[in-house]
């Protein structure tokens, strides 16, 4: 079967050698500077949470574990953006559920180790944590969405959701190192809300980049 001449001419017109994309993990490494910035921004700018001593190892390892999970989700998003390497429905469910379960477990563990509730200005604290967590995630989610768009995401909304989830987890891991309120109602609404905003931003950005590219 021969290629139609019209098609051949069209392909020849803009043909140039290309370098194959790096592996998803390698491409995810390009997000590391942004991820590190998101991770250390809150503790460096504001200070470390005041119950860090009471939490002990949990304060650092929990955030580190969550940030690592976020990085892996970003790598998963970049793999999803390559045709033929899409995740199955079950894998996607696992990628979405496992970090959520991990964040909930860490929230409950922190509450057990150092129970600090929000006594005054609940909604103010809620708004600050949600907005700051989401804003810190934005550079990471943007970088990931741009990297994904440079591939060929066949499911851009899903790719963006994974990118947003990964970025949100990393940003929230940093924000947790500053926010000492361990009350589950606060963490699961404000901090998880920040991650949810990041997921939505990732979906919108990835879809937009796909349609405009």
């Amino acid at each position, binding site marked *: *079967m*021969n*290629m*139609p001449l*019209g*098609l*051949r001419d*069209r*392909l*020849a017109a803009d*043909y*140039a*050698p*290309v*370098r*194959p*994309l790096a*592996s998803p993990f390698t491409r995810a490494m390009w997000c590391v500077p942004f991820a590190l910035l998101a991770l250390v921004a809150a503790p460096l700018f504001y200070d470390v949470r005041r119950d860090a001593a009471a939490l002990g190892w949990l304060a650092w390892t929990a955030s580190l574990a969550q940030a690592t999970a976020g990085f892996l989700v970003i790598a998963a998003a970049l793999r999803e953006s*390559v*045709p*033929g*390497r*899409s995740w199955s429905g079950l894998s996607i469910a696992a990628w979405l559920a496992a970090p959520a379960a991990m964040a909930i477990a860490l929230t409950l563990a922190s509450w057990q180790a150092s129970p600090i509730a929000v006594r005054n200005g609940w909604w103010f604290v809620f708004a600050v944590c949600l907005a700051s967590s989401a804003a810190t995630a934005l550079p990471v989610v943007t970088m990931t969405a741009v990297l994904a768009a440079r*591939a*060929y995401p*066949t499911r851009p909304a899903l790719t963006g959701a994974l990118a947003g989830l990964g970025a949100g987890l990393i940003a929230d891991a940093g924000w947790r190192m500053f926010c000492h309120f361990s009350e589950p109602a606060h963490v699961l609404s404000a901090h998880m809300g920040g991650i949810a905003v990041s997921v939505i931003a990732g979906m919108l950005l990835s879809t937009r980049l796909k349609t405009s590219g």
Partner: protein
Amino acid sequence: MADPFDSLTAGDARLRQLMREYQSGRFEAFDDLYAALAPPLRRYLLSHVRDAAKADDLDQETFLQLHRARHTYDPAYPVTPWAMAIARHVRLMDHRALSRRPRATDDVNDVELPVRGEAASFVERSEVRRALSQVPATRRNAVIQHHVLGLSFREIAERTGIAETAAKLRSSRGMAQLRTLLKGHGAK
């Protein structure tokens, strides 16, 4: 249902080599890739759209997208799942585009045909309509939009969400088929 890519699995090493060559600068490698991939991709597309002309258009669009996404192919993996994923994406995008825009009429009697005098001398309008109704819908719409409504191929491409080349192809194939059908009625 038999997997249309079964026959390709054995030859995948060759396809990988061709893709590597295509990525690294040998344009001619795409001719062989086309020869190997076009039939099974077309079969896959045809099994979903059930319209030969439409399957041809989508097949070509798939190869355009394979070309544009050639940097995403990783030589460590088989070519066919990669190509298949892009074909599936093209099909779904086409389906989505179709469901979002108003459809052209399927009833050719609804179309006001400004048959020119020279054509009218050979065939009656009803014969043109009858012949037109036998042309597949995608080609018929391209013929009507270009030759009856006077739209450019670029405009047709924008309206229908296909490539300009595909619009030209649909129209020319539709006209060729129309001529053949009208010849059967004694026309030029």
